[in-house]
């Protein structure tokens, strides 16, 4: 964990305007393989916009995005997934009427004779991934995910990302709608995915949770990075100070 390491994914000087609104004003961000990097900031700080740029949902007006040190131009979300970047969206993006395996493989179905799907194999590989990650929803692989609880659905969405990602997983407030025990399970899952060597980007408003799970913390304010911390060198008060603008350790660009 040295700074000489090349970030798995990084963004430098990202600018994005929506009409009169400047959502990002030269924002930078770095995340490393095998680490959870939390991205925090107040509402309107530009977290979602920055994430959209990394996930290929939005193309920035200016700035560079680097994947393993090489500059890339991410044109759309499918392009991002092909490069090994998976996103777990806040609203989950699961099809409630399909079962877990169909959701995990949606849009990337394993095929037979080119046009048929290979459901047994998709079920098997989904169950395998769930077992590896310790996700406890494999008892009935045939029921639609609509009958799952919120935590189980979140686990399916995260497991899908884990199965496909080769480099980066972006999670947009993965615990926002969950109860205490479900949240603990999801955080466990996040750590397990990190330990598989993935760069995990974790957006959250819950600062104690961020301190618990994150190896690095980067703070956005008014569309630019204002502070970055390592695990253990910061507390909730200092995080609040940086979110509100009272503290910065970023050298002005």
């Amino acid at each position: 964990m040295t700074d000489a390491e090349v970030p798995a994914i990084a963004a430098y000087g990202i600018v994005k305007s929506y009409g009169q609104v400047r959502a990002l004003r030269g924002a930078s961000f770095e995340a490393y393989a095998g680490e959870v990097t939390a991205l925090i900031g107040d509402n309107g700080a530009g977290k979602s916009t920055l994430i959209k740029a990394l996930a290929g949902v939005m193309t920035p007006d200016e700035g560079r995005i680097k994947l393993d040190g090489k500059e890339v131009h991410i044109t759309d979300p499918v392009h991002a997934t092909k490069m090994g970047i998976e996103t777990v969206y806040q609203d989950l993006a699961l099809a409630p009427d399909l079962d877990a395996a169909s959701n995990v493989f949606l849009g990337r179905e394993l095929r037979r004779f080119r046009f048929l799907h290979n459901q047994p194999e998709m079920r098997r590989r989904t169950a395998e991934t769930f077992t590896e990650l310790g996700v406890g929803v494999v008892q009935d692989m045939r029921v639609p995910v609509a009958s799952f609880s919120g935590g189980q659905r979140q686990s399916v969405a995260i497991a899908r990302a884990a199965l496909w990602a080769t480099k980066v997983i972006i999670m947009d407030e993965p615990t926002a709608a969950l109860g205490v025990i479900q949240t603990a399970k999801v955080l466990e899952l996040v750590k397990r995915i990190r330990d598989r060597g993935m760069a995990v980007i974790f957006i959250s408003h819950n600062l104690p949770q961020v301190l618990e799970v994150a190896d690095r913390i980067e703070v956005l304010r008014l569309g630019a990075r204002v502070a970055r911390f390592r695990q253990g060198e910061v507390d909730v008060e200092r995080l609040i100070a940086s979110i509100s603008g009272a503290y910065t350790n970023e050298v002005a660009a």
Partner: protein
Amino acid sequence: MTITQIPVEEAGASFAPKRPPWRRMAGSPVMVTFLALAVIVIAFSVMAPGKFNQLDNFVQLAQNVSILTVVSVGTTFVIITAGIDLSIPGVIVLGEVFTMKALSLIQVGDVSAVDITADQIQWWYIVVAMLGGLLAGALVGAVNGFVVGYMHIPPMLGTLGTLGGSLGVALLLQNGVNIATYTLDPVASGRLIPGIPNLIPIAAIVALIGVVLLHFAVFGRHTYAIGSNVEAARRAGIKVERHLLKVYMLGGTAAGFAGFLSVAYFNTTSLSGHSTDNLQAITAVALGGTSLFGGVGTILGTVIGVWIPAVLKNGFVITGVQPYWQDVAVGIVLILAVYLDQVRRRSRNRR
């Protein structure tokens, strides 16, 4: 952090033990529809023994429902995307007209293939006629798919527009006059399987293609996904607009094929004879457990759903009840079926 609820089973994160397949079947909408049909059949068999429950009667019934089956298989796909296709009557009639136009392109001696005698019929005349019907269906289906998929017009209004459009074009092409032909008669009245009119195996083949395409093909999986959560489908990389275009083309092609079959069965175009076919198809699909909200449905359910109104009508005629009661009965069954679907959804989404 909000602590709204912690379901007890969360701690163990376990489900009830896996239900055996027959238990899963018992709760499924298809099973409910099948049981409803079985009850109706048994009731009429008791009320009119020796008349209703005869093999001949069931073969006749099967033939009567085969054209509607073909249409409804296509409609099932459309409704699973949370869409609807009101243009079916127009597409069927345009399919009939294109079938006739295709036949009239073939010259046999002094006349066109529309007016030839039975001994002059060649198998490829029939193929050309069929291609005409399929073409009409694919064309209107493509317009539907473009309007709904790419222009994002609500399917009910978009296909209402193409209903009028396609019906109008069909009437223009024929100057509003029906044309008769006996060239296609072997398609409907022939019996490749002894004792079984050809329409029945034709409908069965279409249903089988529907089953493969909906339940075993990636195409069907994406159809469900779009109806279930269109945003999830889009984010999963499914080209939603293009897929909707294909689904509406499929629905249209099925209706165009039904137009061809209709000419074969009635030996004439029937410009004003299909005006409620869209509602009949939607009724059959809904009775079969396909949700009008999208994401849920089966071809088997639709095939059973097609039978319920037909059996009711047939049974009322045989038992001497005014057949108009069929419309009342179908209305009640339809409302019950959709109500059941909603109750099921609500209880499922409560968690």
